[in-house]
């Protein structure tokens, strides 16, 4: 288990930590030397706009692998905080560290997943500081998604924060960052129409089915995988008018049965799905298997029995679960997650008009984060100043209390309360000024002066001013609203 980074110092101009380095990882990955310097927030990522699916599927992380790589990344790149956001459409690293360099993160990732570093670099994007905050807010609001304003990405952002907390790689900065991003995402969905209208990958798949079959009432469907996406797609098919029984197959039969009960479907054994291909018209494949499940031979055999009836294979898995060769067979229409992008774009016109409003919300949330971030610099000084004053007051009161022993108890209590009031009034104006300077980002120079004036040798840890590592993210996750119930699914 990693030892959390010890917050040691808040420098002028930037908050900064000394980092306790972890052990070396077993992977043959170039390590970076521990650095000292300003603490920076960096985002490196690969999404559907910059990287092809072949690359993205190699960079996809499950919950456990995300925690593993977060820990390794933190140890190798001198990071104090690290979080991985991995969805079907993106893999992003959020890192906080001293003089953190995006190239180091990309190089590490390339080594970890055995991908050519130069190629990875060419498909990556990088954001720093406020741009990184804005980027995550945009991701949470669905502005950076394949389907504008999608719902599921908000949950995925929350899950990423949760995973980082559980892996002990999250800290106050990332906690606050993810909290701010989730707030931006929630506000965007409640205050604008960015998510109105069922537009998603699953919805796009259903629209594609309509384009091929016309009415869906008589179509039969098979859902491979009993996960969340399978369920969302299944419900969407039902709402689109599919009246026939939907078959659900999963490696774990019990999960298929559970989903079938919830969605008025029929659970079938996993090994029966090749035979079912000859009967159904639409196949939604959404499993977490890292290899092809629906192979070309299986589809070819099914097509012989179908006598030219077309079949729609929708592969919304990453890595892909349907052999691309199957798409070349006559009367087979195979669409993977990238192919559905075009279908989804048709429905984005109305949502696109809301982008400006959402950007305004994001700008507000980015500003709030900046204020909070700036407050990190002055907060220890404020705490130290108060502590100094309280120590002085307490010492003076201890000395004075004996001299006031002849006074009644209620008079002594009143005098002690007065000392508290005196200290508060005395410090009120300096504290207000320091906070204002912190908000404006000009407080760091004054912090040193305050420390020298009050003799503050050991400033309070930043974690005392911010929320404790993980607490913020946990609180954030706990306050999450549920996903939309309009049947809209996200990118994965």
């Amino acid at each position, binding site marked *: 288990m990693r030892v959390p980074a010890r917050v040691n110092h808040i420098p002028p101009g930037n908050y900064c930590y000394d980092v306790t380095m972890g052990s070396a990882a077993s992977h043959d990955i170039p390590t970076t030397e521990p650095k000292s310097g300003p603490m920076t927030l960096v985002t490196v990522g690969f999404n559907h706009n910059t990287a092809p699916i072949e690359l993205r599927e190699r960079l996809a992380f499950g919950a456990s692998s995300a925690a593993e790589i977060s820990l390794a990344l933190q140890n190798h790149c001198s990071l104090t905080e690290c979080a991985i956001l991995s969805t079907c459409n993106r893999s992003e690293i959020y890192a906080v560290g001293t003089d953190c360099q995006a190239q180091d993160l990309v190089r590490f990732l390339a080594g970890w997943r055995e991908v050519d570093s130069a190629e990875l670099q060419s498909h990556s994007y990088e954001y720093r500081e406020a741009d990184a905050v804005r980027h995550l807010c945009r991701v949470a609001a669905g502005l950076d998604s394949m389907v504008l304003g999608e719902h599921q990405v908000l949950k995925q952002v929350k899950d990423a924060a949760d995973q980082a907390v559980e892996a002990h790689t999250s800290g106050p900065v990332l906690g606050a960052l993810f909290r701010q991003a989730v707030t931006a995402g929630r506000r965007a969905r409640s205050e604008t129409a960015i998510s109105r209208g069922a537009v998603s990958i699953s919805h796009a798949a259903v629209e*594609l089915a*309509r*384009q*091929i*079959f*016309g*009415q869906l009432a008589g179509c039969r469907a098979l859902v491979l995988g009993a996960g969340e996406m399978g369920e969302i797609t299944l419900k969407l098919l039902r709402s689109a008018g599919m009246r026939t029984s939907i078959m659900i197959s999963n490696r774990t039969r019990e999960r298929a049965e559970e989903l079938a009960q919830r969605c008025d479907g029929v659970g079938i054994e996993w090994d029966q799905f090749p035979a079912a291909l000859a009967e159904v018209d639409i196949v939604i494949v959404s499993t977490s298997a890292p290899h092809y499940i629906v192979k070309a031979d299986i589809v070819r055999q099914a097509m012989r029995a179908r*006598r*030219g*009836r*077309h079949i729609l294979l929708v592969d919304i898995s990453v890595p892909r679960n349907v052999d691309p060769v199957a798409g070349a067979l*006559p*009367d087979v*229409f195979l*669409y993977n997650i990238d*192919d559905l992008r*075009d*279908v989804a774009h*048709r429905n984005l016109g109305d949502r696109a008009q809301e982008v400006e409003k959402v950007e305004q919300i994001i700008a507000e949330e980015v500003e709030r984060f900046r204020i909070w971030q700036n407050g990190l610099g002055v907060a220890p000084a404020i705490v130290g100043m108060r502590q100094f004053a309280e120590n002085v007051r307490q010492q003076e009161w201890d000395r004075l209390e004996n001299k006031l022993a002849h006074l009644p108890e209620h008079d002594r209590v009143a005098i002690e309360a007065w000392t508290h009031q005196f200290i508060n009034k005395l410090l009120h104006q300096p504290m207000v000024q320091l906070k204002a300077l912190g908000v404006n980002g000009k407080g760091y120079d004054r912090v040193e002066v305050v420390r020298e004036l009050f003799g503050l040798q050991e400033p309070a840890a930043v974690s005392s001013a911010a929320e404790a590592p993980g607490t913020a993210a946990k609180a954030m996750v706990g306050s999450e609203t549920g996903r939309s119930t309009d049947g809209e699914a996200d990118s994965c």
Partner: protein
Amino acid sequence: MLTARDALFGMTLLAYFLGAVIFPANLFLKHPRLNRIGVQITFVGMLCHTGSIILRGTQSRMLPFSSLPEGWSFLAWGVVVIYLSIALRPRLPSLGAFALPAALVGVLVAAATPASTPILSGASHWGLALHVAASILSIGAFALAFACAICYLAQDHLLKAKRLEGLVRSLPPLGVLDTTSYWLIALGFCLLTVGMISGIILVPEVLKASWIQRPDTYATLLLWLTFAVYLYVRGVGHWRGRRTHTVVVIAVAALLIVYGGVILLLRPATLHGGTLISQATASAIGRPLGPTRPLSAPRPPIMRESSPGAGER
């Protein structure tokens, strides 16, 4: 002087012209309202066309497909009527991009083609009229099935190639095209069967010529068999998909070539409602092909044929 019939025919031309512009343009504009407007205009055009045909029939006391230009006009009317009957289904109005230009060509050819002396008078044999009308309407149904099959193949290609922008969204869904094509072929097949049976029974009686000597009979029979096989494998064997629509395209193209091209070119003949009657045959029934005249020109007096098949019955 402009007669009511000419006015109606002119309005028909205008309506079909507008339809022939609106529907193809809307394949790219993709405005749902434009399709509705196009269907409404086509419906008005069809009413005008019907009125024009009725007026012409009542004034000349002849069937509306008694001569070559009238045959073309009746074919255009048949295409439009069948199109309107299927355009009520969602996404199918876009088939007007094929139907309306075809109908416009039909009425333009009818307007421009010099008319020959009519063969079928109002007093012609009812069976022969049935033969001609059924044959013409079968061509209309097959033409629309041809359009459906072409759309199907285009849509199939675009969806297969994942080119999901552009025409894909304008064309009807594959399932709708498949079903519509099937029913149009079935309709055309029934009409063709009626036309063939009536022709086989009545041609020797009316025209005093054996159908066995007519090459178009064999071509039609071959196509009839092709469509019968298609309907069997599609309806009973439940075969469908790209291959079946390729068969439809080839078969209908062959049908159109047979009726509209090869025999017409090989044998100097006049098309009467889809039935090719050669000069010799026409002469044999005592109706030599007379001087030509435009469609709007007054008809010559109806000839009283000596042939028993052409007289009143």
